[in-house]
Each structure stands twice: as C-alpha cells, then as structure tokens.
C-alpha cells in the first residue's frame, strides 16, 4: 500500500511539475452552457476567452468546460476548476446562478463572475449586457425599412431579457413609422435551427418584410434570403456571411472588453464584487456594420441614435410610455429604472398578443 502511495505521489509530482511553473500565472476558468460550436451565445463567450489569452499572453492561463448542464454538474465543474487553482471563474449562463453561489461559498478566495444573474456575494459579481440598446437601433432601421409595415419577431424564451428587446424594438420602430405592427412568434428554445427557419418563413408568408430574431442560428436570415425582398439582422454574432443579402446590421455580444478588465483586476488585486450592466458605450453590445442596402439617411439616423445612447444622452425607455393595457408606465421625460427593466414582464402599448406565462 505504502509503495503504491509513493508511486502515486511521484506521479502527481511529475504531473504537477509542469503545473508548478504555471503557479504565478493567473488561471481563469469558463463554464459554458452550450458547445463552443453553437455559433451564438457560447461561441461569443469563447471568442472573448480567446481575446483574454491574446491580450495577456503568458500571464494568463484559461480553461473551459463546454455543454455543462445547469444544476449539480455546473457546481461540480466550478468547484473542480477552483481546486485546480483557478483564480477567476466565469459562469456564462443564467441557470448557473445558484450553483455559482454554492461553489463560491466553498472557495471564498476564488472570484466568480456570473452572467445575467442577480445574486451576488463578496466573491461573486454579476454582469450582463444592455442588449435592448441595440434593439432600439434595430427597431429604428426596421421601422424605416419596412414597406408592408409588418415586422416579424422571433422570440426565444419569454424571459425579461427577450421582452425588453421586443419592447425596445417596437417603441423605436413605432416612433419612426406609426403604422408599424409586430407579429411575434415564440419558438420556446434558444437554439433550434429548423424551427427558427419555419418561424421566419411563417412570418414572411404573413406579410413581414423585416425579421428580427432573438435566437442564435442563421436560419431566419437564410429564409429571408430565399424570400428575396426581406431583411433581417444578425444576432449574437455578426453573421456577416449574409451581409451581401438580407443581413443589414446585427447585435454582437462582445464580452472581450469586460473579461479583459476583470482579469486585469484580479492580476492587480483590485477585483471586488460588482454588478455590471453595460451597453453600447463600453462596447459590450456591438452594432454590426450597417450595409448599403439601408439608404444613407436611415443609416445616419440609426448611427445618431446609437451615438446618443452611447453618450448617455438618450435612454431607449423614455416616457411617455404606456403599458399594453393602457395604464401609464413612464410619464413624459421619465426614464425606466433598472429594477423594472431587469424584471420586465409586460408589453408596451400597441403590441398585440400576450406575454406567454
């Protein structure tokens, strides 16, 4: 027995001898809910991980585990990373919220960053992106560009994030085009290419000539390309492969600046628990290039809106705004507070249909 133990110890020492050099490196772990090849949500987080590696070079070592189920698997993976010496762990799905807090309790010295959640601790930060700012820009382009005055919206799962997007897009489309109506279809999934394609087709058949999607595959753009006179937007990643066709702009999840800043903070020892909700200004929400299919004056209008949101001069949810039932939500000039936005579960006035619940 003793001999075996010595052998194992020797093997571990050997195995760790390479790891020992890495001791002064900062180790950063990433936990992904999907495969890095999903071309959307997880893909963009992994791009940001690569950007971190690029930026810091030998100073930093990154590890990741993909396709981690929400629940006990996530907690185990995070604890495993912490045991292996990770200094900072990014948990990149809302469903990792409670597992992250559990793991953080067990490893008070390791810093955790949880995406899109609201529970924090001394060593747990939360971060999220104000994608609705991008939706406002999309809504403006959509409202100007539509000829049928019907805009199709493919919703994924009815959570506040998606509802916010629909409202932001609708408010700004309506502002530039009072005749506009929204047709909303829920596919009840973040990612189901075949169903997204069908949803886009259905919307186009029912008269939509602009498709806005909150799902991650290019299927709706392909359907728009097939229909010919329909435009759409990239989602999560730029989807530039369709920029000679229906894709006129996009919302890009760009986590890289935030990840680099947080890793830097750990290196400097200046990391502290925080709640970050960034938008266009710091670059967390990117607006993909607006193509020539959009007339110059509309493009200028969209870019001006983008600039005024970035400068903080304009808030996409500025009153007067009513809720769907006609009750007043925001008075003239009033802007929405983050608390309401975070838990948004109602449509604004003018949108037809109910929020599924």
């Amino acid at each position, binding site marked *: 027995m003793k001999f075996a133990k010595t052998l194992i110890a020797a093997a571990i020492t050997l195995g760790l001898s390479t790891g020992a050099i890495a001791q002064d490196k900062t180790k950063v772990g990433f936990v992904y809910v999907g495969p890095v090849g*999903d071309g959307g949500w997880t893909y963009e987080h992994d791009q940001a991980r690569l950007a971190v590696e690029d930026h810091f070079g030998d100073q930093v070592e990154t590890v990741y585990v993909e396709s981690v189920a929400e629940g006990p698997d996530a907690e185990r993976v995070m604890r495993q990373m912490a045991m292996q010496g990770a200094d900072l762990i990014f948990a990149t799905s809302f469903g990792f919220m409670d597992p992250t807090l559990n793991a953080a309790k067990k490893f008070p010295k390791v810093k955790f960053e949880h995406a899109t959640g609201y529970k924090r601790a001394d060593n747990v930060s939360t971060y999220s992106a104000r994608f609705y700012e991008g939706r406002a820009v999309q809504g403006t382009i959509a409202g100007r560009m539509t000829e049928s005055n019907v805009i199709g919206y493919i919703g994924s799962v009815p959570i506040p994030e998606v509802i916010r997007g629909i409202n932001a897009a609708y408010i700004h489309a309506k502002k530039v085009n009072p005749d506009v109506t929204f047709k909303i279809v829920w596919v009840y999934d973040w990612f189901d290419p075949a169903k997204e394609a069908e949803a886009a087709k259905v919307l186009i058949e029912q008269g939509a000539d602009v498709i806005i999607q909150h799902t991650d595959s290019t*299927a709706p753009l*392909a359907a728009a390309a097939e229909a010919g006179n329909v435009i759409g937007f990239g989602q999560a990643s730029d989807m530039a492969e369709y920029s000679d066709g229906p894709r006129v702009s996009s919302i890009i999840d760009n986590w890289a600046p935030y990840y680099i800043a947080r890793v830097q903070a750990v290196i400097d020892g200046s990391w502290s628990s925080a709640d970050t909700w960034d938008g266009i200004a710091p670059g967390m929400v990117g607006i993909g290039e607006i193509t020539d299919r959009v007339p110059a004056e509309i493009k200028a209008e969209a870019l001006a809106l983008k600039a005024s949101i970035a400068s903080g001069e304009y808030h996409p949810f500025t009153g007067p705004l009513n809720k769907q039932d006609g009750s007043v939500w925001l008075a003239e000039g009033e802007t929405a507070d983050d608390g309401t936005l975070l838990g948004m579960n109602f449509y604004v006035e003018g949108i037809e249909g109910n929020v599924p619940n």
Partner: protein
Amino acid sequence: MDLSSIQPGLLIASLMVAATPILIAALGEMVVERAGVLNLGVEGMMITGAVCGFVVAVQTGSPLFGFAAAAGGGAALALIFGLLTQMALANQVASGLALTLFGLGLSALLGQSYLGVRPPSTARLDIPVLGDIPGLGAVLFAHDWMVYFGLFLTLAVWAFLRHTRAGLILRAVGENAEAAHALGYKVVRVRLLAILFGGACAGLGGAYLSLVRVPQWTEGMTSGAGWIALALVVFASWRAGRVLMGAYLFGGMTVLQLNLQAAGVAIPVEYLSMSPYLVTILVLVIMSARRNQAPGDLGRTFHSAR
C-alpha cells in the same frame, strides 16, 4: 387575431419543405424495421449526414456531392450498428442509443472548422409548365429537388416492398427470420443492406437540414428530428404511404402552430407547441386501435444455430 393572414397555399408549400428531412429519414428507418431491425440511432446518423454533407458541399462547391457524402456518412455510421447487432449480436436498443451518442460527438468534431460558413445553395427545380399554373404551381412545383426526391423515394420504397422479389425477401426476413433462413435467404446480409440503406436515408435527411432547410452547420442542429422520424415509422404502421402522410401531418402541425401564433390567436403558446406530439399520439391510438402491424421479428436478434 387575424386568421385571414394565413394562406393555405403557402402553408402547404412550407409544410412540404418542413416535412422533407423527417420523411426521408423515416422512409429509411421503415425499411430497416421491415427487415426486423430496430435502429434507434437515427438522430446520430442524421447529424453525421448533416456534417458530412455540409463539409463536402463546401469543399467541392457542389450540393450534389454533399448529399452523396451525407448518404455515405450516414451509411458508414449505420455499418457500425450493423456489425454490432448482426455480427456481434448486440442488443439493438442499446446499440442504437450508443450510436446516437457517438454520432453527436463525431459530428461536432468533424464540423469544428465549419462554423459560420455559408454552403452553396441547392438549385430549385422549376418545373417548366407545371410551375406556371397559377396558385397551385407555386405551391407544389417550385421547390428544391430534394423535396421531389423525398416523394420519389416514398414511391420507390412502396414499389420495392410491394412489387419486387427483393422486397418480398426483406419482408420475409423481418416477419420471421428463422423461416426465411430455412428457405435459404441470407438473413444477416439482407438486414445489413437494409441497415445501410436506412443510414444513407438518415444521412440525406440530415444534410437536407444543413444544406437547404437552415442552411448552416452548428453542433446538435438536428435537435430531435431523428426521434421524430422514428416516431413516424410506428405512426405509419410501417407503410410508405402513411409515412408520407405522417410527415406532412407533423410538418403541418409545426407550421400551423407557428402560423396561429403569428396571427395572434390567444392560445397559450407553450401548450400549443405540444400539439404536434399530442396529435401524433392521438392519431397513433386511432391507427393502432385496429391492429398491430409491426413486423413479426422486430428488434429480435437473429443467430443461425445450424
């Protein structure tokens, strides 16, 4: 609510497209099951076909080569299943499930460097005279050629099983392998060929998703289509014509469900999205209330004792 915005013609055109991948995969699986073999690995073969087709189509620029490669890839994966169940006499249910796991992993590895790539587009088959018929023409005769291939395959499988000697042998093997063996038919060989055919069809169905329906490669993109194809076979009580009917019904329910949503019908969406599965169960119950038409030896391992 505005039901008038739903156009029946367009609905039919969309459901034909939506049904094609599951139709082709289900036809293949039906032949396999008629030979007495239950291969639950359709999902794995479909996704392997999807990635093989995509990679080859992008590399060669030809969707045709892509589809050929998809059929090859699906058949290659099916061969593993065939060797396991026919040569090593492994349990078919477990082998099929393992095949799905294997196929999902393999496809993800193969497709790693093909993210965000746009494949060459598959030509529409504009049938000259028929396509110009007002109304009906656009609905029925202006699809890509794989849609018609699916219809042709339905007819071919039906004719093969019904009217050819080879089809008769295949059915005999599926009904009673011992008896077929006693009559001198090569049970294992027939079953292997059927399994390969099933794999090729599943591969084609998968490639239809990655090359035409979506068209894009992403991991796990079949998201359950293979299981639906399996369900269709039983639903169709192992008849080619009914597979077509079932595929159109399922495709139709999916498309109609989305149409109703877009038209603003106030039905809770989450329950509406269950409807294709519930309708399938309902029709299945009605169909099977009559008589169980499963091949006699379905799922049973055959070994010639001699």
